[in-house]
């Protein structure tokens, strides 16, 4: 245990020395950013105090940041700035001459109702506000999804299974349309929950899951590429901006 403690102190001392040298050579903010990146990367080895430090800092700072953003980005311009514009004239001069929009009292009341859950006696009031938020959004989404995933789906997939172009039969387009037809039909069969996947229905469902897995595979590869570009971005920060090894 003593040897482990000594190793820990040695690592800490090395980090402090490297940090001090880097601050002198590269400046404080760049160094802090680089060290926090390394601390987060250290999770790849195992959980450790440096990761914990970066994690808690990240969580704390982000929670505080979003709280401030919520206040200054939403409540001030969208609530106070609309209910009583002169109130925000000091910070948002462009809004101070706008006419008051008294219907914004409704979200104010809903917001207060939500906060009622902090009270043990009046907590039930918050459920009304929650019901309103959830219900209206679900209702609005129903129409949106019905249009995009249902009605438009028919329009986009009711294609000819024998395509002819200017030069006659178009094999590529025909195969593409057949794949779309089979893929959509079998995909729908897979997501049919009222019937067990047996017999011909089961064959359709199995074909559907194969189509889905092929799609997921393509999506996986595509997204992994995007993630690698994020990693490259961090590496460029460390080796370029911080260490100056990449120009």
């Amino acid at each position: 245990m003593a040897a482990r403690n000594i190793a820990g102190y040695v690592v800490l001392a090395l980090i402090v020395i490297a940090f001090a040298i880097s601050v002198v050579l590269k400046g404080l903010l760049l160094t802090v950013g680089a060290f926090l990146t390394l601390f987060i990367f250290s999770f790849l080895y195992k959980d450790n105090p440096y990761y914990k430090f970066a994690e808690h800092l990240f969580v704390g700072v982000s929670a505080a940041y979003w709280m401030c953003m919520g206040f200054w980005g939403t409540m001030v311009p969208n609530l106070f700035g609309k209910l009583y514009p002169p109130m925000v004239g000091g910070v948002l001069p462009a809004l101070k001459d706008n006419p008051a929009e008294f219907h914004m009292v409704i979200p104010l009341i809903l917001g207060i109702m939500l906060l009622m859950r902090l009270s043990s006696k009046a907590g039930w009031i918050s459920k009304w506000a929650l019901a309103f938020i959830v219900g209206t959004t679900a209702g609005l989404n129903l129409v949106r999804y019905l249009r995009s995933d249902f009605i438009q789906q028919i329009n986009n997939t009711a294609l000819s299974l024998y395509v002819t172009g200017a030069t006659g039969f178009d094999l590529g387009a025909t195969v593409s349309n057949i794949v779309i037809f089979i893929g959509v039909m079998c995909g729908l069969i897979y997501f049919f929950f009222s019937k067990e996947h047996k017999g011909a229905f089961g064959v359709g469902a199995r074909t559907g899951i194969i189509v889905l897995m092929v799609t997921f595979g393509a999506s996986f590869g595509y997204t992994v590429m995007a993630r690698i570009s994020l990693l490259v971005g961090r590496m460029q920060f460390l080796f370029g901006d911080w260490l100056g090894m990449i120009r």
Partner: protein
Amino acid sequence: MRYKCIIAAAVLFVGLILPQALFAQEDAEVPDSLLAEVQLEPPPQPVVTEGVDRPNDNGHKLTVKWKYPEEGVDLIEGFEVYRSMSPDGEFQLRGQSPADYFEYFDIGGVDKSDPDYMANDEDYYYKIVAIGKNGVSSESEIGGPFQTSGQVFHTGKIPVLIGVVIFAFFTVYFISSAKKGKELYVRPLAGIEAVDEAVGRATEMGKPILYILGIGTAADIATIASFTILGRVAKKVAEYQTDLIVPCYEPIVMSIAQDVVRSAYLEAGRPDQYNDDMVFFVTNAQFAYVAGVNGIMVRERPATNFYLGYFAAESLILAETGNSIGAIQIAGTDQITQIPFFVVACDYTLIGEELYAASAYLGRDPLLLGSLKAEDWAKGILMVVFLIGVLTVAFGWDGIRELVRVNL
């Protein structure tokens, strides 16, 4: 004397001949200026024909149309469109249109405080100016008055209305059937069958269960479905007296999740075991949330992880960390781009709509079961219409596609 004669002749030349020569030069320029005047002939005048209110909107937009002779198109650069609220008032430039396009879509402001505001049911007058390539323009007569107005009903969305009515009918019908006690079959889902096993495993190992509701809002359908599954999981957890950890990304989600878990503990007959700290807020910054949850995973080492709800780029980071600690993982989301990550890193994955089905399957609530049945019927109709569409297209009739076309 001889010199005097020469000087006199020179003076005469300078005084009489030279001015004549100069004047003659000026005269020679006259044909050029005349030519220029011929070139500066104005292009033909446009004629404002109509101002049409754009249909299916809230007003504040108007399409002004005009006629222009074909032979004039090559002579002009394009058109400028001017608008005024009275024929004698000041006309303001609204925009430009290319030489071969004889209409302009005038989008006005909706807000009265907007300087570009265009009121509904008010008269507007338009003037079109054809800009000649030679720099000379010609104005149309003033056209108008034209008015713009808002419509209550969007005729382009009638297919959506029909879809909503059909879906609503099925939903109400199946919900009422379920309430009357009719047995509505839902096929078993592997991921959900594994819930009890996963909770039991955590109990045997004496380790907690981690339930993640994703990063959606309380109004996201995936989050709503996840609440139902959380209720079921929390009830099992309460029965088995296992620990439950629910870190939340959104304060409202946390609030609802606390209610759900509290109710589940109450239902299981163990309200004393519930405490609000089981369900807590972390942060609503995506990757900070991931860092926090990963930290919880490696320190608390849960035996079972549930990832059910709306997920984005954090899905693989969470699922991979969970995999590295050896937890049984059950995931489900309706985000197509994230499902592949759950498929590779989790033991069971509920794909898309299976998540909604799972909540109905577990909850056995007539409302959910009825909705699920309605969805199945809607899918059945979709398949039939789709099949008819393909067949009719094969016979050269595009009617089905046109019938379901939504014009926004």
